Structures are given as structure tokens and as C-alpha cells.
């Protein structure tokens, strides 16, 4: 049997395997790039991980010993190679700031942010999508203006300030909600760490009092984050919906006498879902990595705060570990969006 000209030594792969290989290759390349960029940026910053570890008062001998221990005396490419080979085995090293393996820190800090960002995104979608649709349908009317002002507030009011004001009003003055942190001290340590998401862990354990307390604690910080998310989602939904409402098929549906609710929600809304999924996914990822200020105000031990504190203290193992987790979320959520596109839009299959 003769081979075709130009064919390799192996038979051609089926399309599914080719796609899978392409995805794996892209993922590997993305993570490698992410690690390399974070690592090298960390090394060119005018901060000194050894100094961060030993402190300002250390003698030169102690400082140099720490440099050796951290491998900072080696050529930077060797440092990267050593880091990379360890990271591929799931070992990001130890954090200077916590004295614990970075992977253990991530298991504690990431679920806290995941919980906060998920609840905030749920708020954002539940309120933002209907608000955007209503604003588009009632374009230039009072409702539209109200949604626009709300959007403006969400975009422009500093979250740090808003967070403090919300604490003063709902915690200190009205006493409706608990203060900072994820739980009151009475409940800390009651529920075992299973997923790290307290709402889930307490529900799994049947500890409803803990669940209740955790729910109370998450409302304010999630609402603050949701305000930004809501503003973005409502604004984009409005824009997508206006675009759909100007299409000829909408006119046709209306001429055919279909009820307005059916025209909007079964036709126009369905057609803008792909774009909306992208917007929601982006908003969710932004909340995962961009909630530092909210985490600071509400003493929420999340990954944004972890990465930021680590960056200020030149704790590069922690920074890179955190960045990879956020990068993985970004990629994962994008892939999930792709799957959802195919579900909601047959043309994408």
C-alpha cells in the first residue's frame, strides 16, 4: 500500500481527536505564557523576595542565606525552569506571607472569592438582565433613565466608599445584617472545610444556623460587587436588545400579531443570548480577580486580597499561584461559554 504524498507516518486523526489536541495544546501554551509573564514581571519589579522574607533588620548573612534558599542567586532562566517543573507537579512552593504551601493557601482563599463572586453574579444577572430588557423596550422613557442612572452609579461610585457606607447603614445603624468577615465568631470552626464555600459546606453538614449566618455575612459584600456587575450587564443587555428590536424579524413578528411579551422574550431575547453569555462570563471573571477593595472593606479572605498582599511583599510564589488559578478560571469560563453558545444557538454547533 502506498502512502499519499505529504502524509506523515501516522494515519490522520479523526476530527474529534484533532480538536481535543488543539484545545490541549492551546491550554498548555496559555498557561506556560501566563506563568512566564507573571514570573518574569515578578523578577524585574524593584522588590526583593529575600528581603520580604527576612525583614528590614536582617543581617547581611541572614539575607544572603535566604537568597540562596530561594534560589535567587541562580540565572533567571534556571529559576524559571525550576519553578516550572515544580509547578507542573502541583507544587507552587511556599508562601512567604503565610509560611504554608501556596496550594494550601489557594484552597482557602479561592473558595471565599468564588462564593462571593458567584453570589454577586447571581444578583447581577437576576436584576441586570430584566433591567436591561425593560430599559430597551421603554427606550428614552423614565424606566430607561432610571436604569441608566443606576448603571452610572455602579460604574462610578468608588466601591471602597460604598462598602463603608453600606456597613454603616445596614450593620451599624439599622442592625439588619452582620458586620465584616465570613462568619460571626460564634460559628467559626463548626463546619468542616469540604469545598471551602461556607454556604455549601454548612448546607452539606445540615448546619442551618451557620448557613444563615454565612448568608447574612455575604449579602453586603456581594451586593457591592453586584452593583458593578449589574450596571455592566444591564447596559449591555439594553444595547443587545435594542439591536435585536431593530431587526426585520421583530417587525415581522409584530405584524403577525404575536404578543409583545413573546416577541421580546421568545424571539429577540433568544437571539441575543450568545452575546449575553459572553458578557456575563466576562463579568464573572472580573469579579473573581477584581474584588480586592470589597475584600479589604469586608475583611473577606479572598484571592484578590491574597494576590495583592503577596505582590506588595514580593511573595512571588503566591502571586504566580494565584494568577494561575485566575487564569484557569478565565479559560474554564470561556470554555463553558463556548458550550453554552452551542446549546442556545444551533448555528454554533
Amino acid at each position, binding site marked *: 500500500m502506498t502512502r499519499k504524498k505529504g502524509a506523515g507516518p501516522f494515519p490522520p486523526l479523526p476530527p474529534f481527536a484533532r480538536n481535543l489536541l488543539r484545545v490541549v495544546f492551546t491550554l498548555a501554551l496559555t498557561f506556560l505564557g501566563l506563568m512566564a509573564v507573571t514570573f518574569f514581571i515578578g523578577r524585574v519589579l*524593584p*522588590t*526583593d523576595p529575600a*528581603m*520580604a522574607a*527576612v*525583614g*528590614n*533588620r*536582617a*543581617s*547581611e*548573612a*541572614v*539575607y544572603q*542565606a535566604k537568597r540562596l534558599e530561594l534560589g535567587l542567586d541562580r540565572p533567571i532562566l534556571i529559576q524559571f525552569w525550576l519553578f516550572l517543573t515544580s509547578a507542573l507537579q502541583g507544587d507552587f512552593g511556599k*508562601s512567604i*506571607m*503565610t*509560611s*504554608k504551601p501556596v496550594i494550601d493557601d489557594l484552597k*482557602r482563599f479561592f473558595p471565599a472569592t468564588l462564593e462571593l463572586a458567584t453570589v454577586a453574579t447571581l444578583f447581577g444577572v437576576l436584576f441586570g438582565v430584566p433591567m436591561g430588557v425593560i430599559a430597551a423596550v421603554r427606550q428614552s422613557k423614565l424606566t430607561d433613565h432610571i436604569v441608566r442612572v443606576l448603571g452610572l452609579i455602579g460604574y462610578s461610585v468608588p466601591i471602597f466608599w460604598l462598602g*463603608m457606607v453600606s*456597613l*454603616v447603614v445596614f*450593620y*451599624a445603624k439599622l*442592625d439588619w*445584617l*452582620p*458586620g*465584616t*468577615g465570613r462568619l*460571626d*465568631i*460564634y460559628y*467559626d*470552626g463548626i463546619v468542616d472545610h469540604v469545598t471551602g464555600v461556607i454556604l455549601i459546606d454548612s448546607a452539606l453538614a*445540615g*448546619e*442551618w*444556623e*451557620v*448557613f*444563615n*449566618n454565612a*448568608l*447574612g*455575612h455575604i*449579602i453586603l459584600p456581594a451586593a457591592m460587587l453586584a452593583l458593578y456587575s449589574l450596571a455592566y450587564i444591564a447596559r449591555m443587555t439594553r444595547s443587545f436588545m435594542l439591536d435585536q428590536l431593530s431587526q426585520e424579524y421583530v417587525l415581522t413578528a409584530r405584524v403577525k400579531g404575536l404578543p409583545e411579551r413573546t416577541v421580546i422574550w421568545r424571539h429577540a431575547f433568544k437571539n441575543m443570548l450568545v452575546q449575553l453569555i459572553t458578557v456575563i462570563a466576562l463579568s464573572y471573571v472580573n469579579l473573581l480577580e477584581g474584588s480586592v477593595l470589597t475584600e*479589604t*472593606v469586608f*475583611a473577606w*479572605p479572598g484571592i484578590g*486580597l*491574597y494576590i495583592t*498582599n503577596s505582590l*506588595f*511583599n*514580593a511573595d512571588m510564589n503566591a502571586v504566580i499561584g494565584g494568577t494561575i488559578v485566575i487564569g484557569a478560571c478565565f479559560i474554564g469560563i470561556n470554555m463553558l461559554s463556548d458550550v453554552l453558545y452551542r446549546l442556545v444557538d444551533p448555528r454554533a454547533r
Partner: protein
Amino acid sequence: MMAFSAAPVAQAGTPKDTFVIARNIADIINLDPAEVFEFSGAEVITNMYDRVMTFEPDNLTKLVGGTTESYSFSEDGKTITLKMRKGIVFHSGNPMTAEDVAFSLQRVVKLKKTPSFIFTQFGWDKDNVDGLVTAPDADTVVLKITADLSPGLVLNALSAGVGSVVDKKLVLSHEKDGDLGYEWLKTNDAGSGPYMLKTWKASELVVLERHDKDRHGVAAMKRVIIRHVAEASAQRLLLEKGDVDASEDLTADQLKGLEGKEGVEIDTFPQSNLMYLAMNQDVKVLTDPKVQDALRYAIDYSGLSESVLQGSYKIHQAFWPSGMWASYDENPYSMNMDKAKALLAEAGYKDGGGLKLTIDTLNKSPFKEVAQSVQSSLKQLGIDAEIILSDGATLWPKYRARKHQLIIARWGPDYSDPHSNADAFAHNPDNRMEAKLTGKLSWRNAWAKDWATKEAEAAAKETDLVKREAMYKELQKKMQSDSCYAIMFQLVGKIGRRANVKNYVRGVTFDQVYFRTVTK
């Protein structure tokens, strides 16, 4: 457990047997007493470990035995014999013996972490420490000092965090690759102090539980919880609501707002941190004594203390803090721009003479505000000063590499003996760049004066306490007008506390914080 209800309920107040503190504990990076050197971490280990020598809350200026019942010196002052206090029990249940004390001190030297210099200055190193720190029997520890130091200084140094006694048996059971249990002890407890570590979640909380066999008796508070609350405004709200018993990082504004609030009281206590301006002697213009004095006269000490610092710092111009033995409390400098201008002119820089300088400082309050005030004063003298704000991770390497011109920074003693600061501010036996005496502020500022080095060494050796005190006071007085420093302020600690919380004792040094006396 209560069934789930739709409206979450906020539970206010703290339990009667629990002391809850709100503070920023992001600086706790390790709980091994051989390495802890950060404020929050030091507070925690003070309450977890007994030290060889200590200061008790009923008299914070009197050095007394911790694990030591009594001590004696050899005639030449080079050998110190410590007799163990009986009946001390570790949290593990192991009884404490002289073996534990000797091991703990040897371990600090062998691990060579940042605070190990407190012991290596005695002439101890990893090769000789086993022979110089011994436990001839279960009740006796013998320390041999090879350096020329006053035995009083040695005892004072044994009251530092590195003088904490760890449970040898427990620590060695966790040893890996000859690390003397270091990796394990960073996040665990091997102490005998009034509180045991239950939980430490970095940047989240520390939970301590009462040690019922503490040598002082049983503490009133069963648990102490330190909650990480980075934002000072949130700390204030939690305190006002009674969800914490004390808030420790309140700003001057918030403290003012709390004045007169029902159920809240404010505690004020002097602290040992000093804020200073230093002039790098590698910059030629800053070596001129007239320029140095001009800068000292250009600082608005009282204006800053009253306005920007709002009572959170008081004026103090000597290198050893007020309230501690051998402090020198005279403050000869006050702002006098005419005098400053005249001094500059005498030095050949009339109307600033086109001088341009940089002021490095930390990018946080109150350092940047103080730097702005100094910048404004220098402008009036005709000196164009640029402020460079950095985080510690950037500023300290620069300072240690002598790459600054002027710097505004803070310094606190490492242990309760004036030698701690004399060594930092005055002592510089080798000013060469390659000597890299980076732990000393004098070296960092390239300030090396034989007289200052010799006087610091002589005071460190002096065995007569009265003479020693006089020597330190004299050195401080001289350095106020003849050095590269303008020491400006001493920190005044202020915390907010619920009125029902009593006997929360805090001392001058950063680790004199006692939870075992607290009652509610």
C-alpha cells in the same frame, strides 16, 4: 441547631469568656519564636511562650525571671548561671527542664534567622553554642559569654522573643532534615505560656485557648480571638457595635470620633517606635554639620505632632525611647527657619544654593504627610526636595544599599536594653561598602564616627548600672546635635476598648501585650 430562616440574623456581642480583638494581622507570617520579628506575631508568641527573662504586667519596667527562678554571675561576669523555676508545664503536658531552655537558645543561634543577632552578639555561633549554653542538670542552665558585654545587657536580651522556651521533645518529634522542627513550628505551638494556639489562618484570624496549667494561674478569658480587619473604619464599627472587645489600628480621626461614645474607652500608652529623618553621608552636602543642623531646625515638630499626627506621636529627639531605662528626654530642637537659613548660608548654601535632594519614605500615613511637611520646609530654605514613596519591599533594599539621600523611617528596639538602639544608631565599626553591616542604621547612612562607636561599645560593657545609664544618656545627648539623624517623634499607642473589658495591659515595647490579665 436553629432551623433555617429566610432573614439572616446578626448576632451582636462577644462571649463573656472570650476576648475578641480586631486588628490588621497581615504581618503575621510565622509563629516560630526563633524567627518572629513582626508586631502582630510578637504579640501572639508573647502569650504562647514563657521567656527566660521577662517583664510582668504589674511592673513593665522591672526585669524579672520568666522560666528562671534566680540567676548569678561569675566574678568576671562572663558566666551566668540560671536556676529553673519549678513546675512549668508545656501545652503538650511535658514538664519544662533546663534541657528545654538550653535547646531553645541553641536553636535560635543554629537556625540563624533574622533575630538571631540578639544572641550571636554574645559571641555564640552555630559551632560553639552547644559548649557555651549548657544544662548541667535538670534545674540549671549555664550561659558563657565570650563577647565583652555587660551581664545586665545579656539578661535584658534574654527577655526578647528569641528568649522564648520551646518544648524540645515536641519540636524534635517534628524535625525534618535536621531543621530543628523549624518548618513545623512556623505554624504550630510548642509553648508553656498562658495561651495555646488553636488556629492561625493567615490574614483571617488567630484563635488562642487558655492553658489551664500556666504558671501564673488560670487566666479569666478562656479564648482570645484576633480577627483580621484591615480597614480601620470597619474596626471602629465593630467596636461600637460590641462585636469586638478591642480595636487596635484605629486612626486619629476614628479615635476622636469614639471619644465620649457610650460603652467605649480609649487606652493611651507610650510605645518604643521612633520616627526619624536620616541623611546619607555618601551625599557630600549632607556631611556638613551646619547643613545637618539646618535640617533639624527646619522640621515643624510641634505642628506635625498636633495636626498631622494628632497625638499619635509625641516629640522625642533621642535614640532611646522615653519611658524606658536610660532614656534621655530633652528635646532641644524646635522649628526655627531663620536659624536654619543662617546655618545653610554659613555652610555656603545661601537661599538653598540650588540644592536638590530626594526624600524616600513609606507610601503610607503618616510617613508621606511628614515627608510633605519636610519638603515644604526645605522649599522655604530654597532646597528643592523630591519625595519618593515606596512600599517596604522596595524601600528597604534601597536603604540597605545606601541609595537614598534623605529618608524618613521608623525604628523600634529589638529588646529592652539601650544597646539595642545604640548599636543601630551609633555603632559602625566598619563603614566600607563591602562590610555590609546592613542591620545598623549608622552603616546604612554611611555615618561612622569613632567616638560614637567607642562610646556605644563602652556602655555595652559597663557593669555598673548607674554609670551605664549615664553613658547612654550622654551618648544620646551628643548625637542629638552631632549625627546624621534628626530623631523626631515617639509613637503613642492608642486602642479602642469596650468599657466592660478591664486590665488589658500593654507596655512600651511592641511585644509587651498581655491577654492573661484581661477580665470582662
